[in-house]
C-alpha cells in the first residue's frame, strides 16, 4: 500500500520533533528514513504506525486518511530496535500472537508459524524463549511476528541498531531479499548511511525535524541537494567554500600550474582495496583523499612527502542551506 504523509508536525513538550513533514512512499517500495539522532526519523515512523498522534497534518495509507486510526486497526507491522519480544512466550507463541488475536484456528496458526520460522531461519527454535536467543535471532523472530498478520505496510525502527557489525550486514542483505520475495511496502529507520544505501530503493534524508532530500541512493550521492545531505551520505572535504569527496581529489607529484594546491602527507592508511591519505595544506587545513592501492604503490606515497592536489567535481552550496 502506498503511504503519504502530509504536513505532519509533532512536539514533545517544547521540543519540535517534526516541523511539517510531507513525503510519499510508493506501493511495494523499500524506503529508508535516514538522519542523525534527534532528526525526527523515528517519530515520523511512529506517526505512520499510529504509535504517536501528530499535532498537525495527515497520514494516508492506500489513499485513505488513517490519522486517527488506532495502531490496532491500521494494518501495519512494526519492528522495534530492542525487539519488544514477549518474554513470557515461546518463539512459536510470539510469532502466532497476531493470528491468535484474530481467532485463527490452531492448525492455521501452526502452519503459518512454521512457514514463517523457516523464512527467518528459526525453524527448530519454536519452543525456545526469547531469553535463549541471540540478538539477531530475536530480531528475526520479531520480523516473523510482524509478518504473520500479513500487514499492508512493514515499519522497522533501527532494526539492526542493537546488533554487532557482522550480524547487521548479514541481516540487511537478508531484509533486501525478503522484500524481493514478500513485496510489502517497507520503511525502515537508520542513522547509518551505508545501511540505507545498501538496502533501500528510496532514501528520505531527515535533519532537525525536516526532510532535506528524497531520492535514490545514487541521486543523493551524486546530486546532493545541500551541504547537509552531501556531508551525511558520504565523507567530504572542505576546500575554501567548495565541498569535495575524498575520491574526487587527485594527488599530483608536480604542480600542474592551474591552481593545484601544495600539501604535505601526514599519514597513509591501507584499508584493503583503498588507501586513505591524510594531508595538511599550506594554510594548516587538513583533508583526506581516497585512492587505490595500485596508485599509492606506484607513486610511493609516504608520510612527510610534499604533493599537489587537484580537486575534481567540487560543489558549492548557497550558505545557510
Amino acid at each position, binding site marked *: 500500500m502506498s503511504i503519504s504523509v502530509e504536513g505532519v508536525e509533532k512536539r514533545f513538550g517544547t521540543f519540535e520533533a517534526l516541523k511539517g513533514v510531507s513525503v510519499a512512499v510508493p506501493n511495494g517500495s523499500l524506503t529508508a528514513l535516514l538522519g542523525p539522532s534527534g532528526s525526527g526519523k523515528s517519530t515520523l515512523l511512529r506517526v505512520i504506525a499510529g504509535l504517536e498522534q501528530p499535532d498537525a497534518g495527515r497520514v494516508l495509507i492506500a489513499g485513505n486518511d488513517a490519522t486517527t486510526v488506532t495502531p490496532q486497526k491500521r494494518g501495519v507491522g512494526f519492528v522495534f530496535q530492542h525487539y519488544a*519480544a514477549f518474554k513470557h512466550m515461546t518463539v512459536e507463541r510470539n510469532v502466532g*500472537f497476531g493470528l491468535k488475536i484474530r481467532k485463527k484456528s490452531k492448525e492455521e496458526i501452526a502452519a503459518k508459524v512454521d512457514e514463517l520460522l523457516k523464512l527467518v531461519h528459526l525453524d527448530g527454535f519454536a519452543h525456545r524463549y526469547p531469553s535463549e536467543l541471540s540478538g539477531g535471532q530475536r530480531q528475526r523472530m520479531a520480523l516473523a511476528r510482524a509478518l504473520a498478520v500479513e500487514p499492508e505496510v512493514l515499519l522497522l525502527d533501527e532494526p539492526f541498531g542493537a546488533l554487532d557489525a557482522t550480524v547487521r550486514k548479514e541481516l540487511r542483505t537478508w531484509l533486501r531479499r525478503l522484500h524481493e520475495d514478500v513485496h510489502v511496502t517497507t520503511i525502515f529507520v537508520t542513522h547509518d548511511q551505508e545501511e540505507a544505501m545498501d538496502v533501500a530503493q528510496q532514501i528520505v534524508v531527515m535533519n532537525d525535524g525536516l526532510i532535506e532530500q528524497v531520492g535514490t541512493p545514487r541521486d543523493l550521492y551524486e546530486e546532493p541537494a545541500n551541504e547537509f545531505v552531501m556531508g551525511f551520505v558520504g565523507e567530504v572535504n572542505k576546500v575554501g567554500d567548495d565541498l569535495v569527496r575524498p575520491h574526487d581529489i587527485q594527488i599530483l607529484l608536480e604542480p600542474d600550474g592551474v591552481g593545484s594546491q601544495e600539501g604535505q602527507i601526514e599519514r597513509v592508511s591501507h584499508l584493503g582495496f583503498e588507501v586513505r591519505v591524510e594531508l595538511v595544506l599550506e594554510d594548516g587545513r587538513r583533508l583526506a583523499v581516497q585512492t587505490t592501492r595500485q596508485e599509492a604503490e606506484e607513486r610511493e606515497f609516504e608520510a612527510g612527502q610534499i604533493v599537489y592536489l587537484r580537486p575534481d567535481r567540487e560543489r558549492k552550496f548557497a550558505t545557510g542551506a
Partner: protein
Amino acid sequence: MHAASLSKVQRYGLRFVALGYLAALLLVPIAIVFVRTFEDGLGPPLEAITSPDGQHAFWLTLVCVGIAVPLNTVFGVVAALVLVRQKFRGKAILNTIIDLPFAISPVVIGLALLLVYGRNGWIGQDLIDAGIQVIFSTPGMVLATIFVSLPFVVRETMPVLQEIGNEQEQAASTLGASGWQTFWRITLPSIRWGVAYGVVLATARALGEYGAVSVVAGRISGETETLPLFVENEFTNFNLAGAYAAAIVLALLALVVLFSMNLLKRKETET
C-alpha cells in the same frame, strides 16, 4: 592475611551480632509463646481456639483479608498503571497519598474512620438511617484493613512496570490486540511476580492488623473480634492458653505467607 579481608574473630563477631540480635528480639519471644501454649498439653489451647469466640475471630480475620486484599490488588494494579504510564496534573500528589497508610499510625487511621463513619461522624448517621452500620461492625473493620494494606501492591508493581517499559504493549497493539487483550496477554503476565509479591505483603499486613481495626471494632467478643483482637482480649482476661493458642494460629498463617513469598522470590529470579 589480606588487608581488606576480615580476621576470623571479626567474621564470627559480626555473625554473632546479627544472629544474636535476631534471636534475642524475635526468635526467643516467639519460641516462648510456643512453649507456653503447649505447657499443659494440647487440650487447653485447642479448646480455646475451637471456642465459638475463637472460631468467629478466625473467620472474621479471613473475611477482612478476603475482601481487603483482592480489592487492593485490583486497585493496586490500576493505580500502578496510571502512575507509571500516564502523565497528568496531581500525579505527584496521588503518588504521595498512596503512602499515607505507611506514614500514619494505625490508631490515627482508626480515628479517622470514626470521624467519617461514626455515629457523630461525617456520613455515619446517614448510613445508620439507611440501615448500614459501619463502625462497631464488620464493614468498618474491612475498611480499616483495606486502609492499612493499600500501598503494598501499588509499590511492588510500579518498579516492575517501569522496568518492562511499554514496547511490548505497543508491539501487541500493532499486531491487532485491543487494550484489554494487551493487558491480559502481555502486561499482566509480565508483572505477575511483582503483583504476587505485593499481594503476599498486603496479606501479611492485613492478617496482623491490630490498631486501626481495634479502634473501629468496639471489641464485642464473638462479633467484632479478629484474631489479633481476640489474642489481646484473652490475654487481658487472664485466659493465657487461649491468647497463646490464637497467637500461634496467627503466627502460622504469617509463616505460610512468608514461605510463599520466598517461593515467589525464587520463581522471580528464575525467570
